[in-house]
């Protein structure tokens, strides 16, 4: 038998060795986080400027900015937050405070646990098949926001449940004993006490949604957006001659036009569309012409019909796009579209006021998609833009996680049952 002090010394040595290995593993992982930040900073810090934040994407790397991506991320997050927070908290409250223990409840629980681990790209496929093509919401901010809300719903539900579970049972019993109804207990006691815990979970969930790329790529978020979604009740410009691009239909190569042409989202119907042309100096009344349209018309018939309107020239671009332009010195707008033509072809109507929620139907890009797009451009100069976008993303997500840690720490200090 070995002497006991030898065994003890060996044990202490092994412990020390493992302690060092543990430190080393931890430092390795943290140094990777450090290296990642370093490589982003060394490539992207020089591109971060006010101009970068306020410029649209561009074909020239040095002039490109993240304006549309920032606005897109903000609006998508607005929809996500408005959908996921109330639904997630409601579901969490139901499961924790109302649900009886039966097979249906445990089905919901297993289902939520499973949903939390479904790859995000699967949510994108679901949204593509269901929201885009079945519910006709288009490849819009609304679709993107709802998709991400579905994605983070399990996180919000689990956070709500854990926050509610942390409240001691006697708080509920005290309220019930005073004659409060279940809903009064939830509203006046449980939700106020669990605000901190729920807020922590919501912040972490939203920070995950900000960085999500794959599901939004799948639903077809466009990576090159050089405009902002319409401001509610702002006036749409009439379409001038010099800006024919704005009236270019998206894709019209098929002949005759198939239903769901263009974006493949909006069906075409028989109907009419009104074209109004007026002098662009603002003086003089608009001249109105009504065109009849039926879905069997070819793209060439469509061009001829628009071309016959006085003061308007219609042409097909080499790639098969329909372009409308007013004669010089005048401008035009489309109105009274009962054929669904403007949506199916992506034609800009011009004129009138933007609706209060029209922005939600606007095509969009978000920060991670913009970054991915710059990263997959072969030109090495765009990698700097990607790094700058990455720095913005990291600032947002790490900031939100920091806020969550802060909220959690404060909550722990304040609440003592």
């Amino acid at each position: 038998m070995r002497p006991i002090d030898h065994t003890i010394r060996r044990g202490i040595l092994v412990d020390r060795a493992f302690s060092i290995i543990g430190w080393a593993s931890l430092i390795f992982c943290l140094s990777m986080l450090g290296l990642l930040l370093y490589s982003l900073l060394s490539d992207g810090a020089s591109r971060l400027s006010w101009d970068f934040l306020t410029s649209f994407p561009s074909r020239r790397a040095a002039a490109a900015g993240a304006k549309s991506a920032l606005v897109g991320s903000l609006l998508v997050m607005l929809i996500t937050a408005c959908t996921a927070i109330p639904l997630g908290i409601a579901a969490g409250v139901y499961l924790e405070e109302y649900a009886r223990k039966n097979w249906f409840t445990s089905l919901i629980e297993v289902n939520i646990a499973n949903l939390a681990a479904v790859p995000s790209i699967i949510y994108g496929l679901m949204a593509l098949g269901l929201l885009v093509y079945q519910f006709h919401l288009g490849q819009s901010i609304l679709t993107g926001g709802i998709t991400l809300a579905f994605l983070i719903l399990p996180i919000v539900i689990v956070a709500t449940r854990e926050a509610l579970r942390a409240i001691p049972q006697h708080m509920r019993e005290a309220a019930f004993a005073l004659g409060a109804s279940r809903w009064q207990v939830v509203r006046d006691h449980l939700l106020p006490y669990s605000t901190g815990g729920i807020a922590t979970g919501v912040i972490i969930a939203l920070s995950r949604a900000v960085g999500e790329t794959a599901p939004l790529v799948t639903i077809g978020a466009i990576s090159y957006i050089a405009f902002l979604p319409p401001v509610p009740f702002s006036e749409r410009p009439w379409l001038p001659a010099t800006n024919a691009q704005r009236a270019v239909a998206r894709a019209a190569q098929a002949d005759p036009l198939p239903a769901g042409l263009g974006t493949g989202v909006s069906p075409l119907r028989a109907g009419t569309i009104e074209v109004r042309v007026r002098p662009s100096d603002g003086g003089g009344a608009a001249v109105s012409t009504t065109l009849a349209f039926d879905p069997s018309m070819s793209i060439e018939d469509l061009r001829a019909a628009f071309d016959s309107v006085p003061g308007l020239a219609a042409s097909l671009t080499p790639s098969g796009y329909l372009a409308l332009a007013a004669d010089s010195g005048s401008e035009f707008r489309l109105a009274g579209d009962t054929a669904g033509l403007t949506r199916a072809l992506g034609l800009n109507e011009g004129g009138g006021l933007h609706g209060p929620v029209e922005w939600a139907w606007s095509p969009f890009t978000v920060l991670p998609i913009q970054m991915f797009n710059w990263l997959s451009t072969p030109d090495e100069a765009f990698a700097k833009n990607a790094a700058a976008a990455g720095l913005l993303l990291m600032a947002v997500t790490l900031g939100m996680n920091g806020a969550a840690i802060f909220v959690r720490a404060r909550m722990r200090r304040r609440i003592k049952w």
Partner: protein
Amino acid sequence: MTQIAANPARGARDAISHAARRKPSAVLMEFGLLLAAVLSILITAGIVYVLFSEAVPFFRVVSLWEFFTDSQWTPLFDDKHFGILPLVCGTMTTTGIALIVALPLGTIIAIWLSDFARPGLRETVKPILELLSAVPTVVFGYFAIQFVSPALGRVIPDLPLFNVLAAGVVMGIMIVPYISSLSEDAMRAVPMLLREGSYGMGANRFTTAIRVVFPASLSGVGAAYTLAISRAVGETMIVAIAAGMQPTLTIDPTSQAQTVTAYIVQVSMGDLPHGSLEYQTIFAAGLTLFVMTLGFNLLSVALRRRFRQVY
């Protein structure tokens, strides 16, 4: 009603039971909350419906036999082949490399945090480590292609810029916190009594951690592992950015490969007409992915449930 006068106590009870009877608004409220909870089932149903409704027409044209045995995946070329194996192989290789990196690191950190680190240190380190999994995956993709791949290229000659190795290594670093946090929770849940018993027998910390704590927390650790695997299988942006876009049936980590998820991204970036066979391929690929991750998820749920019942 006459009984109220006859029996005052009974009347008071009636009045209370009337007040306590649930108002219609309360019933409506509960129903609203129930709907929110049921939404999660509708989401799952939506996922299953979309995947199947788009994949079934695909499998009418391409037989299951061809799908699982053809060794080429070229749906976007003129010479079309629909063998999912190269994509699954790409997914398995990247996942394998990620696990080789993440399992040892994650497990060592978990053991170290639960049985070696001081509590104060543990509470500081854990949130910082979890920041790793909060980094957006597209940023990890940037790291893989701009930093790790060139760095590995300096060590391994003739390494192409797009390679499985860099993507896998970065993915591994990403999933370390999943493994370390969940495993550490499982290890901390092991009762102190077991540790004290072991120390009382003269065992040192390391022996206690490896021989007593680790086996006792095995199902929780297993749940953490399976969750990490399912994350790696479903990870999209890192592999789409860094592993390349060439479906190849190979397990060579220094070559390019395409994963199931990267293929879906590649197709989504283009503009395929709705309803075409090429469009349906992403749903067939998605269904394959869903089935793969579902298996791991259910295993993880089962393991966690068992682990909860132990103590």
